[in-house]
């Protein structure tokens, strides 16, 4: 009925508009929305032998997944990884970004260096770190004169992997912080200086609140990024690693079941657990945003 009222100009816009969005919308439906629903369906099925056919088994996969100590352990491992990567990666990046606000020689060089890991394949980064961490021949144990099993001692392997994550992400967080800092008007600092506020006071009274939208954005994207970590884990933690169970992330476990073992129903159920977990985290983050983020 609305169509009859359309002027020729509106009609043209409607035709062009739909023609322009059609490829994207079709793509999203075929490549994302259908797969999302299909994963839910698969999580209710048992994968037939030789990958043939799905047998509907109801909630059996969920019973198995939720009753599996391995799944809960890997979820906890993922959280532990996030506890290392997210705060450290953000605090260090913020310090560097604030320092880079000053007039310095070689600023571009520093920025280039800090951002460098962002353009490297995580597979390569993980290989180098694995070599640095090597218990017998690694640089770290050599320099420190220690004999620590950095990545195969279940007690510390999660920290070691987390540190690779921090090293990889500092530059990215820093660039986002620099962007946020540049948007804070300079006169606030000048006014504060006239009032005799110290640099520390200025940081906490001006920088922190006015930077909070940027900080929140980074916190949110990094938490979700950390909860879905895969590349570093996969490259660093071999199947034979003694610390595998106490370190592997949930996405790694999903990959193992769905693609190495070909048990897609079980893998799909693991993904659903991850999705629900991320949704809960996102929900609380949104609540938090209203309370602590300062939008002027």
């Amino acid at each position, binding site marked *: 009925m609305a169509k009859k009222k359309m002027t020729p100009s*509106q009609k043209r816009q*409607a035709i*062009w*508009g*739909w023609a*322009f*969005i059609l*490829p*994207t*919308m079709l*793509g*999203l439906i075929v*490549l*994302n929305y*259908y*797969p*999302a629903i299909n994963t839910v369906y*698969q999580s209710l099925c048992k994968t037939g032998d030789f990958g043939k056919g799905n047998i509907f088994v109801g909630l059996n996969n969920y019973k198995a997944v939720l009753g599996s100590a391995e799944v809960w352990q890997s979820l906890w491992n993922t959280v532990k990884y996030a506890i290392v990567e997210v705060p450290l990666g953000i605090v260090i990046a913020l*310090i*560097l970004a604030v320092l880079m606000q*000053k007039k*310095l020689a070689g600023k571009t060089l520093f*920025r280039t*260096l*800090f*951002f*460098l890991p*962002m*353009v*490297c*394949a*995580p*597979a*390569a*980064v993980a*290989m*180098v*770190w694995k*070599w640095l961490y*090597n218990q*017998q*021949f690694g*640089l770290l144990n*050599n320099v420190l004169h220690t004999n620590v099993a950095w990545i195969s001692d279940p007690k510390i392997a999660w920290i070691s992997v987390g540190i690779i994550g921090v090293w990889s992400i500092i530059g*990215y967080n820093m*660039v*986002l912080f620099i*962007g946020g800092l540049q948007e804070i008007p300079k006169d606030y600092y000048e006014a504060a200086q006239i009032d005799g506020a110290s640099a520390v006071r200025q940081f906490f009274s001006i920088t922190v609140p006015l930077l909070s939208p940027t900080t929140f954005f980074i916190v949110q*994207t990094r938490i*979700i*990024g950390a909860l*879905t970590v895969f*590349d570093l884990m*996969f*490259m660093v933690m071999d199947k034979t690693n003694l610390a595998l169970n106490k370190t592997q992330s949930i996405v790694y476990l999903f*990959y193992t079941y*769905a693609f190495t073992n070909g048990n897609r129903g079980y893998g799909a159920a693991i*993904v659903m657990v*991850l*999705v629900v977990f991320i949704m809960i985290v996102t929900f609380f983050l949104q609540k938090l945003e209203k309370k602590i983020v300062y939008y002027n």
Partner: protein
Amino acid sequence: MDSISTRYKINKFITYMVLIIFAVIMLVPFVWMILTAIKTNQEAISVDPFYIFPHNGWHFENFATVWKSYNFITLYKNTILFIIFRVICACLTATMAGYAFGRLEFPGKKIMFSLVLIQMMIPAQIFVIPQYLMVSKLHLLNTTAGLVFPGLVTAFGTYLLKTGYQSLPKDLEEAAAIDGCNIGQTFLFIMLPLTRSSMVSLGIFTALFAFKDLMWPMIVCTNANTTTLSAGLAKMQGQYGSDYPAMMAAAVLAIVPMIVIYIVFQKQFVEGIATSGGKL
């Protein structure tokens, strides 16, 4: 006066020290990667902290050996094709959709755009199994088309370009209409060139994402001749994990091209990532 200037100097000194310490931490893995790559395996595993530099000559031939035995030419070719097609698909579909969402009015626009936004909030892992099954059914396993498949369209890019088009002044279209342009011509000749910076951001983002991606290439390209650099490295590590100089030489070969591109187009990279703020 004097104390202020000394305090200023101390301040600056501390700033430099912190930056330099972190710069060294960032550099050490790269330096060690290169130094290991030019050693013999025997040197690499000699447990002496003073063997930092190779002392039996610099074995650049490690690169040549790795280049040949791991078929790096194929890996480069696969990765470049993968990146190029992903970038073309993303830019093409996203700029069209972004223009429609940002500048045109049509029925159903709000609902369709909410589908774009919702996609961005769903963890991508939920798409992987069915995407793999589709690629498998289409007989695209171990092909570039299979690699590109999930990236044919991009919700994030659509959102990014929509914001880009929205920020353009309104009178542009009116002027174009007076000159007799239809909507297609207005888009192609007037609006599209003005969103170049958003397109560059999306292109860089897409290229980096494809280059760094590990799971998808491992799933769809199990054959060593069809896979990408990232997934190729994973394969090599599984097979020859204890030949450290070879591993490091392979890692260097895999990351050097992107580092060179990054250093040349540094400004675009950093700005592109900062303005798009995408989840990499």
